[in-house]
Structure formats: structure tokens, C-alpha cells
């Protein structure tokens, strides 16, 4: 029996709520098959299965929130019938074994979900892969990683393991972050309460709304008798929220707040950790726009192309000239990516920002990019994203030209190392060959991680983008 664990959902997402199961016990599943929908503070997304097998048991019901890496289903792998997997968080076995990943670890910092049976082993610290977000959490909670048992593949330490260690240190009962009632979670989100180190007073250490209300009321309330709500906390309301429009509005507000907090954490982390440098360049868009206008005249309306796809393609191709812009900064070094998955910064209609990936943008034709872009924007704003769209961007593009902005000096999305910004296309005076005329120009900017690249290479990259925009027929 093997465990299917909640896979990575993006560098900054460490938990999700089960929204829908697409399979049940007894169903056969194939590699790549979408098995469930989960919701994070950023979006609802599909998650896929990693090998062939048959589902034995669903471990997490709809509505429950679990940490990335937590087991959510049990299954029998097709090729490995009869191999047993010991339960996670067990006592250490006799001898430590060197770290061998179950499958090649992706270039991202996240943990790949377990696909082959693994044991929870206590591996010497220097052999273990400890991802920066996990290390930071351990620092924040004051946990010595040497004493933590990793339950990820090959003994990797997950954030959930660090939290479990923190909870064990503070209270006799183990608090599983996954066990939080929906009302408690909503309250926590609305008041900005961090539940990662909270201790629950409900059954099995579950965190109840009373626990959250106590945290909201403040440190004085925490000293109070845990059996019932303290006088300072508001009277407990019924667990089920009010039905109808008001509930929807409250849920939407809570979601927006959760997203805002996520963005806040990611952007703050980016500025704390990434030494940004900024470059800009003026791009004469005459050739590109003339070419595009002629193209669009020949095409039926549904096949019309937007200038945005020219920009995205130019960036995706320029990356081949300057590979230090495409990849991730992980474990203290730059890991270049062969594939070019351009993150597209998409603003949500009532606030909020997500930057999911268009995969293999360098290999798509402009038509394919247009279809992909339209589909991505639609699903980002109102539908469902795929998990890999959130985990895979290798470089991000942000286009604020429509808002009338001249240039955008953006904040890099960790663990990426570069962000390309495009401002509006405007007629400007342009001098060439001693003559001044008016040309349609846009300002392209690069925000780059100075650990991965230097200004000279950044300049070469922007020049490469410019060059490609002068030959639109080759895009």
C-alpha cells in the first residue's frame, strides 16, 4: 500500500483545502490523471496522480485543510502490489541510510510527492535536503532540524514535520495543522492569525474556533482555562455560517484576505532574500506592430493576436541567449531550467495577483501562445488552474501597459531569478540617423537576482528581447 501525498502547489503554498475528489476507492488511476481539486489562498487547482494504481482509501474528506506533503489517499501501485509502507512519523530505524530520492528532485525547492514506497528514516543532517522555506520555518519556530524526523520522500523534512515538532515541544498532544474546523480557519484568516504553532483543544488536538478566538483576544487570554472560552473571547457562534448571499460575500472577503496575506508574505520574502537590480530599455515597436496589424487584417477575428504574445515569445526565446535568467535559486545556488515556462502576472478583477505559467512558451507558435494566454487568463480569473501552472514558472513577465504605466520595476517571485516588465506602447520622439520622428515605443524592464546574474548579462538579455521584437516574423 502506498500513500498519495498532497503535492507541491507553488513555492509559497504550504497547505490546501480539499474541494472535490474526482476518484474514489476502487478506481484505477493513471499517471498524470487529475484526481482532485484543491483550494489554496491563491486559487483552486487540479492535482494529478504520479503513477498507475488503484485507489484503496480516501484519507481527507472534502472541506478539510491539509499541509503539502500530508497523505491524502492510499493506493496500491500497479507494479508494486504487496509492498508495504510503514506509517510516517515513526520511531527511527536501526541505521541511517544515505539520502536517495525516490525520483529525481525537480529543480524547484518544493518536495516531490512520494511515488514509490519510502520509509521515514532519521538521516544524518548533512545528507538531507533541507529546503529554504523549511529552514526558515524551523528558525522562526526555534526548532533544531537535527532532531526532526522527515516524512517526505527519502526522509526529506517537510514544513509539516517542523510544525509537528514545534507542537510536540509545547503541548503533550500532537497538534496536526490539518485539523482545523472551517469556522476556525475563517476566523484565523480574517484576523491574520498564524495557526502554524497553535495548539488545539479539540478532539485529537484539533484547532477549534474557541482556540482561535483566544489567540485573537491576546496573550492574557491564553493563560485562561482551556476548557471553555475565556470571558475576553466573544461568545461562540454556531459552527455553520449564515446561508445565502451574506455567507458568499464573507467567504469571498476571507478569500481575498487570504490571497493578500499570501502575496504579502511572498513579496516581503522576495525583498528580504533577493538582492534585486533593475535595468530598462526603450524598444521601438514599429516593426512588431506593423507586422501584427497586417497579420490581423488577414485573419478571422477569433484568430486575432495581441501584442502581448509577441512580448512573451520574445522573452521566451531571449532566455536561450542568457540562460541565467531562466531557472530557480535553490539551496544557495542557481539551477538553470532547460524548459522555459513563462509565468504571466495576471491581476484579478477585484484585487489580487497570480502568476501561473504557460509551459514551454519558447516552443509554442504565436497562435498557440494566444490560445494558451486567453485560456490561462480565463481560468485564473474564474476557474481552475492546474497545479503545475503554479509550481513551474521559470521566469515571469508582467505587462502593465494597459493601465497606462510607462515602466514597471517589479518584485521577483522567489525562487525565480528574473522578472521582465513591459509598460505601455506610446508614441514618442525617436532620433535615428540624425532625424527625429515619432515612433511607437515601449519600455521593457528587467528585475534580476544579483546572486544569479550581473548587470552586464541583464543588459545582454534585454538587448536580446529587443532584437527579437525587431524581427516579429521570426517569433
Amino acid at each position, binding site marked *: 500500500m502506498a500513500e498519495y501525498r498532497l503535492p507541491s502547489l507553488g513555492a509559497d503554498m504550504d497547505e490546501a483545502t480539499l474541494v472535490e475528489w474526482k476518484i474514489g476507492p476502487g478506481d484505477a488511476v493513471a499517471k498524470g490523471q487529475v484526481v482532485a481539486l484543491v483550494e489554496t489562498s491563491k486559487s483552486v487547482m487540479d492535482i494529478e496522480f504520479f503513477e498507475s494504481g488503484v485507489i484503496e482509501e480516501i484519507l481527507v474528506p472534502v472541506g478539510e485543510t491539509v499541509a503539502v506533503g500530508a497523505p491524502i489517499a492510499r493506493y496500491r501501485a500497479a507494479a508494486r502490489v504487496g509492498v508495504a509502507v510503514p506509517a510516517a512519523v515513526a520511531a527511527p530505524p536501526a541505521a541511517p541510510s544515505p539520502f536517495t530520492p525516490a525520483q529525481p528532485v525537480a529543480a524547484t525547492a518544493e518536495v516531490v510527492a512520494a511515488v514509490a514506497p519510502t520509509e521515514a528514516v532519521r538521516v544524518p543532517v548533512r545528507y538531507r535536503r533541507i529546503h529554504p522555506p523549511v529552514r526558515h520555518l524551523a528558525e522562526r519556530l526555534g526548532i533544531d532540524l537535527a532532531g526532526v524526523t522527515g516524512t517526505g520522500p527519502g526522509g526529506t523534512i517537510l514544513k509539516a514535520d517542523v510544525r509537528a515538532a514545534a507542537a510536540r515541544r509545547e503541548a503533550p498532544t500532537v497538534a496536526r495543522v490539518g485539523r482545523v474546523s472551517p469556522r476556525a480557519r475563517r476566523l484565523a484568516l480574517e484576523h491574520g492569525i498564524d495557526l502554524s504553532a497553535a495548539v488545539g483543544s479539540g478532539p485529537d488536538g484539533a484547532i477549534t474556533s474557541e482556540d482561535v478566538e483566544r489567540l485573537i483576544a491576546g496573550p492574557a487570554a491564553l493563560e485562561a482555562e482551556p476548557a471553555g472560552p475565556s470571558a475576553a473571547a466573544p461568545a461562540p457562534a454556531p459552527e455553520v455560517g449564515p446561508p445565502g448571499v451574506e455567507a458568499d460575500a464573507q467567504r469571498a472577503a476571507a478569500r481575498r484576505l487570504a490571497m493578500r496575506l499570501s502575496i504579502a508574505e511572498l513579496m516581503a520574502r522576495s525583498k528580504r532574500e533577493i538582492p534585486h537590480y533593475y535595468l530598462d530599455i526603450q524598444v521601438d515597436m514599429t516593426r512588431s506592430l506593423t507586422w501584427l496589424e497586417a497579420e490581423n487584417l488577414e485573419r478571422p*477575428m477569433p484568430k*486575432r493576436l495581441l501584442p502581448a504574445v509577441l512580448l512573451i515569445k520574445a522573452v521566451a526565446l531571449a532566455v536561450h541567449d542568457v540562460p541565467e535568467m531562466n531557472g530557480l535559486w535553490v539551496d544557495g545556488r542557481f539551477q538553470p531550467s532547460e524548459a522555459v515556462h513563462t509565468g504571466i502576472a495576471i491581476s484579478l*478583477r477585484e484585487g489580487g495577483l497570480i502568476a501561473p505559467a504557460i509551459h514551454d512558451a519558447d516552443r509554442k507558435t504565436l497562435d498557440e501562445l494566444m490560445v494558451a494566454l*486567453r485560456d490561462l*487568463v480565463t481560468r485564473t480569473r474564474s476557474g481552475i488552474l492546474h497545479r503545475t501552472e503554479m509550481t513551474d514558472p521559470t521566469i515571469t513577465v508582467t505587462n502593465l501597459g*494597459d493601465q497606462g504605466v510607462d515602466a514597471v520595476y517589479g518584485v521577483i517571485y522567489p525562487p525565480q531569478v528574473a522578472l521582465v516588465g513591459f509598460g505601455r506602447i506610446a508614441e514618442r520622439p525617436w532620433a535615428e540617423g540624425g532625424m527625429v520622428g515619432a515612433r511607437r515605443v515601449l519600455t521593457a524592464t528587467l528585475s534580476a537576482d544579483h546572486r544569479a546574474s550581473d548587470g552586464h548579462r541583464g543588459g545582454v538579455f534585454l538587448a536580446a528581447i529587443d532584437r527579437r521584437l525587431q524581427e516579429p516574423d521570426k517569433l
Partner: protein
Amino acid sequence: MTNDEIRTVVLRVLRRIAPEADPAALDPDADLRDQLDIDSMDFLNFVLGLHEALGVEIPERDYPQMSSLDACVGYLAARQPVARAS
């Protein structure tokens, strides 16, 4: 189609693109892109929606004529395909 019917169609397509907007609150004379948060992808989807609903070809060079609600209705009314005699 009468102008009122065209207006209804335009508002319906706009609703799909900007679901949070209140059609009654729209100033029919003022620029749509100023009143609603519409980017170039939204605008393309808008003209495509009108094309599908009304069968009108809207070349890119005519986009400036689609500035306000009234302007859209006028533009589309003038270019409705003539109904074929059966």
C-alpha cells in the same frame, strides 16, 4: 435588431467580461475602458463576443469607435448584416 436590442446584447457581453460591473450605473457617453477595468485581452474578448452575437466584423482600426456604450450601439447598428430573404 433595434438599437435597444443591440444595447442589451452589448451589456450582456460586457457582463461576461466585467461581472462585478452594474450596467445601470454605466454612463452611456463615457469611455468604457475608463469606467470598467478592461485590459486589451478583455477588450478583444468583448469585440469577439459582439462578433459572435451579432455577426458584425470589427477590424482593429475601428476599435477607437467602440469607445462608449452609445458609440458601440451606433457602430454595430450601422453594420448589422442584412437579413437574407427566405
